[in-house]
């Protein structure tokens, strides 16, 4: 481009027409505006409700949220324009949705702790329901049953699940069998727990007759639910082991199976253990399959291969659904079982997170 041309171009640029100076910044609400509007709506709604004499916490929060959203939208629309107003409205809606999602969690914890603490005593953990008609008694037999059945299910599921994940990641990459397994493991994740119970019943009824109730059969049903969870989580963990580690081991002449046992699995052990713990936490609260196949009994049964075995969730359900004649002790025991169950599940979740965090391989 020649100099003349450039001058030519510059001369064609018109000077800006004389008008109000263009600002690149929109009018904007001050940073404290949302808090101010929130406080305002709380006061207004609270005042109105108090004036009409129909004050209720739920109604108050519900109406305040609506007033807050509307007020923000209107004010922002006037000051900042429609697009910004929509943005603010959506922010409020999304935040409120999150808070709504937290309500059940908080409510469940409060309810279960509040109702369950009445019988959360030594007797609950040391006595069974044998010979108990009214007050007293406890969930010892149910706790024992839960631990035995879950342990058995874990013993069956962990080797199968981990080995399958090893096959999927290390051996069967992209083969037809591996793809089929992946798909059906996904499908298995969605099997309703009651169907797993029916399966265990149908299986054992073939050999032992239709009145069979067995702790071991309950463990089989739980394995059907647990295996896919173990496979999925282990698979994810094995996949993120860097390939360089495997190649380094191969380069040293290590056989494949020793590479997997000594390099791949130790590297990902934290994630695998945490995934297994979460899987245990998932099945330990299962009710439906055990109601069907493990049955109900009042006494302690340590032998999963003979006779009925009560578990905590089934005990809770039965105490609540079919209480005895003074009703309260049964309901109390149901809530305490739920409390014990929640504590177990929360502890397992916490352990899983801690294991994943503390024993995670130092990658950097």
């Amino acid at each position, binding site marked *: 481009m020649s100099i003349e041309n450039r001058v030519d171009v510059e001369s064609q640029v018109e000077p800006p027409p004389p008008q109000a100076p263009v600002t690149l910044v929109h009018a904007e609400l001050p940073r404290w505006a949302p808090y101010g509007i929130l406080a305002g709506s709380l006061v207004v709604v609270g005042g109105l409700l108090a004036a009409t004499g129909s004050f209720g916490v739920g109604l108050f929060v519900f109406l305040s949220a609506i007033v807050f959203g509307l007020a923000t939208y209107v004010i922002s629309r006037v000051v900042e324009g429609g697009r910004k107003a929509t943005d603010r409205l959506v922010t409020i809606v*999304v935040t409120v949705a999150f808070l709504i999602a937290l309500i059940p969690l908080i409510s469940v914890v409060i309810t279960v702790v509040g109702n369950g603490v009445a019988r959360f005593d030594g007797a609950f953990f040391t006595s069974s329901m044998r010979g108990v008609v009214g007050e007293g008694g406890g969930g010892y037999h149910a706790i024992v049953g839960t631990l035995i059945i879950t342990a058995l299910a874990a013993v069956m599921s962990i080797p199968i699940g981990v080995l399958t994940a090893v096959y999927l990641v290390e051996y069967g990459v992209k083969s037809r069998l591996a793809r089929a397994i992946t798909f059906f493991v996904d499908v298995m994740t969605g099997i309703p727990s009651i169907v797993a119970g029916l399966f265990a019943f149908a299986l054992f009824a073939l050999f032992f007759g239709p009145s069979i109730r067995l702790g071991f059969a309950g463990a089989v049903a739980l394995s059907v639910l647990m295996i896919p969870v173990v496979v999925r989580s282990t698979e994810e963990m094995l996949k993120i082991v860097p390939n360089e580690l495997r190649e380094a081991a191969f380069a040293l002449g290590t056989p494949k199976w020793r590479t997997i046992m000594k390099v791949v699995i130790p590297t990902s052990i934290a994630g695998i253990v945490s995934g297994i713990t979460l899987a245990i936490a998932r099945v330990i609260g299962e009710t439906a399959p055990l109601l069907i196949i493990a049955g109900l009994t009042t006494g302690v049964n340590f032998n999963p291969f003979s006779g009925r075995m009560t578990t905590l969730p089934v005990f809770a359900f039965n105490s609540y659904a079919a209480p005895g004649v003074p009703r309260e002790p049964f309901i109390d025991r149901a809530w305490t079982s739920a409390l014990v169950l929640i504590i177990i599940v929360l502890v397992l979740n916490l352990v899983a997170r801690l294991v994943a965090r503390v024993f995670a391989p130092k990658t950097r």
Partner: protein
Amino acid sequence: MLPPFHHQREDAVSAPTSTPTPTTATPPKAVQQPGDRIFAGAARGAGILILVVLAGVAAFLVIQAVPAILAPSSELPGGTSLFAYIGPLIFGTLLSALIALLIATPLAVAVALFITHYAPRRLAQGLGYLIDLLAAVPSIVFGLWGVAVLAPASLGLSTWLTTYLGWIPLFAGPVSATGRTMLVVGITLAVMILPIITAVSREVFLQTPRLHEEAALALGATRWEMIRMAVLPFGRSGIISGAMLGLGRALGETMAVAIILSGSGIITFNLISSSNPSSIAANIALQFPDSTGLAVNTLIASGLVLFLITLLVNSLARYIINRRREFSGAN
């Protein structure tokens, strides 16, 4: 299923003759130890065992369901045909799951958006754990909570609905005095499937290409416009499949329905009255312990129907997820 076996046989045959000769075109095979073969075999065996178990689930259910299918209707519980027995249960199952889905999906998408795009960065992961905890609460606990807290709390809402919206058949009433209604079941199920829909949506939202988001923001889009233009179109199939996984779970959920509803074999769209259809799973859980003979077979036949419905829903969900995975570039 042949290629893997073939592959391994090749390894085994070539193992003894694996003196490396540089002139051969094929690279030398690694020496296969017995340990290698045992370990590979065990791994593949475990995988095949899973397929066998799944086939077993279907096979044993069919075997046990056949007597009920073949039996004359007069011998079945209630003295009706199998279809008349299971029909209302299927209806109840679908209705409760559908209510749950309608409530949970918008909420879950909003929660996922909050965690991925609105929450302060530091808090986001912790908040995610909090929602995951919801998934960890056993279903029996949700059932107890539903009947003890939610049912009484729903009375006000139900009364309001029937007073002002009573002309809609859904809310015709009369309001159940105990609050143990289809509506409460739907809400409880919604709480239970919320975490899974949230988890799937969250994963997809996080995979939205960073550049798409930044490009939208650079063009002057507000945060909501960025989400509408970049995040939601990208995550649509993720939301759909998450919702279907949630639907699958709601269909099979047993204890919450069993505790809250006292079902009768009727078909009604009235959500807030005291007579409600039960669901397949809840009906099995409630009837099974006291059933004998053909009644057991009938229950298993209904379980088979439930199995097929959830299988269909879940396969569809997985199909959508997998199809999107191929072109998302996520892997």
